[in-house]
């Protein structure tokens, strides 16, 4: 048994956690910004998929990975704007529109992918991002190779967490986001445009979801498959609740989920082979459900979440 544990807990394991957590962190922060402004974005799963496809295609056709990332972010922002158009400008049901955005984006991703790449026996792949060791820091034992010998996008995620907290809690725009998510009427009477603030937050959220998608196809898998997102978007929605709509807690939740996911991957590969691998695959999701059941009891959602804002309504 100890041999199994040794095999599991090594530098590679830590590095794997960080890698798995990165797209989740982007997606969770994106969903968090949207929800803090009062807009649930169930389009996340589809937005991630379409961004992953668009980024991969752009990178594959142009040969520039960063152009791919840019395209993924723009596509994510665009789909965010679409969701905001329905839910913020038109005030339609956030649940229904979100699911609509996911179905539309997923379908569009499959369609465009087939259109561009055709049906190939071996799915096309690209030469993805390579780990960029940070001088000195990467020499720290254990932590160095795990955290500071990663893709640039991982570093971006690490920076994005405190940045998100700063923006949300310390800037006037962040205060406006929190206010429109709690009491849009209060923000409106203080001269803050509820519609504009919500649009901005949902678009920013979409862009972050786009980054998450880009990571999947350009750093993690270096190819696009129809199952590339496989529920990560839905998980992010749970992680936002788990993280109580706070950037730090949400990122922590992403790390925790990544830990369980990395653990089950190792367990699959280790000597516990007599258990069907599907049992391991379930673990992170079982963990999420249990964690949600315990932790989300006293979590309080933004008061105006799901509520459209119309000014002349009395």
């Amino acid at each position, binding site marked *: 048994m100890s041999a199994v544990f040794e095999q599991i807990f090594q530098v590679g394991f830590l590095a794997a956690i960080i890698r798995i957590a990165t797209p989740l962190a982007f997606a969770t922060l994106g969903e968090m910004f949207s929800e803090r402004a009062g807009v649930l974005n169930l389009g996340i799963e589809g937005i991630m998929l379409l961004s992953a496809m668009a980024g991969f295609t752009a990178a594959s056709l142009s040969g520039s990975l960063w152009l791919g990332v840019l395209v993924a972010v723009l596509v994510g922002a665009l789909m965010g704007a679409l969701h905001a158009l329905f839910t913020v400008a038109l005030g339609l049901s956030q649940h229904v529109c979100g699911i609509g955005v996911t179905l539309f984006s997923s379908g569009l991703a499959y369609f465009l992918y087939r259109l561009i790449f055709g049906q190939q026996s071996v799915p096309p792949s690209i030469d993805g991002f390579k780990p960029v060791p940070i001088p000195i820091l990467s020499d720290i034992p254990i932590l160095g190779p795990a955290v500071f010998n990663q893709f640039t996008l991982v570093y971006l995620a690490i920076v994005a967490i405190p940045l998100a907290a700063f923006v949300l809690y*310390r*800037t*006037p725009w*962040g*205060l*406006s986001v*929190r*206010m429109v998510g*709690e*009491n849009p*009427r*209060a*923000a*409106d*009477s*203080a*001269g*803050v445009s509820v519609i504009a603030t919500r649009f901005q937050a949902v678009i920013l959220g979409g862009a972050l979801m786009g980054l998450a998608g880009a990571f999947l196809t350009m750093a993690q898998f270096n190819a696009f498959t129809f199952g590339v997102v496989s529920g990560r978007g839905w998980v992010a929605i749970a992680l936002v609740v788990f993280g109580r709509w706070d950037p730090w807690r949400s990122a922590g939740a992403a790390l925790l989920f990544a830990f369980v996911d990395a653990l089950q991957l190792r367990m699959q590969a280790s000597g516990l082979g007599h258990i069907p691998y599907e049992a391991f695959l379930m673990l992170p999701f079982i963990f999420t459900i249990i964690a949600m059941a315990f932790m989300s009891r006293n979590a*309080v959602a933004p*008061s105006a979440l799901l509520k459209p804002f119309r*000014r*002349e309504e009395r």
Partner: protein
Amino acid sequence: MSAPLIEMRGITKSFGAVKANETVDLSVAPGEILGLLGENGAGKTTLMNVLFGAYAPDAGEILVEGRPVAIHSSADALAAGIGMVHQHFHLAPRLTVLENLLIGIPGKSGRIDRSGGLARLKEIGRRHGLSLAPDLPVSALSVGEQQRLEIIKALFRGAKLLILDEPTAVLAPSEVDGLFAALRSMVGQGLGIIFISHKLNEVRALTHRCVVLRHGKVAGRVDHPASTTSAEMAKLMCGHEIAPPAKGASTPGASVLTLDGISTVGHGGTPLREVSLVVRAGEILGIAGVSGNGQRALADVISGMLPPKTGTMTIAGKAVAQFSPRELQALGLGRIPEDRMTTGLVTNLPLADSMVLPRIGTEAFSRKGLLDPAAIRAFAEEQIKAYDIRCPGPMARAGALSGGNLQKALLARELAFDPKVLIVSQPTRGLDIGAARFIHEKFLAMRAKGCGIIVIGEDLEELLMLSDRIAVMYEGCIAGTLSGADATVARLGLMMTGAEGHA
């Protein structure tokens, strides 16, 4: 006299076919408190929403310090120096006091200007005697403190004119004095205030001048409110004299409700301690007391929502075995709760549904376990006619009705089944004179028919007018009971503070 701070000229605003405001003129000078009077639906709130930029007027202009300004949004209004304290506060409960103040204020080098905000808050505290702890979440503030925060918020943004929409409706009498002192200090420093209310005694005590609206038009102006009688103002508001309801002599019969040694535990508010009461047929018992002294627990016990820990209760001679609203209703209890919107009606359902809600499973409204929509509708239509409930029809969303009409609907619902006992809390809070008078007359009519009524209220004038006896609650106990003839505002006030006991 200097140029008016604000002048509104010929303001007209329609909603569909309804003219909410028609050629209204109004002005406020620096250092002046202007009272804006009118019944519910007279157009006071609409007019102020026009001034604050929430509605665009169809015609008319607004001048600030003599210059015409275009106000298209609350941001424009704030920039013009107009601040508004809405009836329903515009605060985010989970954000802090300071965050609620800083919303919409540009930051300093991209960050929230915390130190600048604190300094400004301190200055307002010094100048107007209004202070609050900056880092407390708003949810931790009392209603009075939240209102103070709203006033600070307006001053924070440099308001020269402050609009207060029915500010005293949510306050306890002691808090009203504090509010008035702050308002007087503010006009002493050159600000202007528009004070919206339909409480005539407050308007007379506070304002320098009054404009009275009726059906969206200016019905009259009062230049010396302090020396004008309430009756004169009420006549301007309603368009006709309002006579106090005739209260006949009561001949109380047998006891219809008795509480014997009722004590409760928990449930948030002040619990009851050994409360014993008797209400007889054909009698109105008033329950006075400073809010939070167990009135809510009393109402909840009597309406069956809170089973007592000890003690017994009988309705019409039958002991209550099981405390549930349905059981008590079956014994002949009617109830009009304190909060119409949350425990009275279902605001998102049609009015007709709410009107039959307590009896939804009974033979009157269902057949073989299925609802009888025709019977429900017919009942609602009948009551709407009988009580003159102003609404588009029985299928209109209940939440769309005004407070007075909602209260009439609740009253209709309970009285239609001839209760032996009726418990009501704050029956006329937020209602205008006309609607309140209607409610009072209905209570007196029920009393004449032999119904025993308990009225829990904070408005002592109302209790004195209606009640045959008044019991005062203090810290969960009955501090004493006075007969209607012995009771005075002064005496009740003393008992409410626990100073005078009376068995």
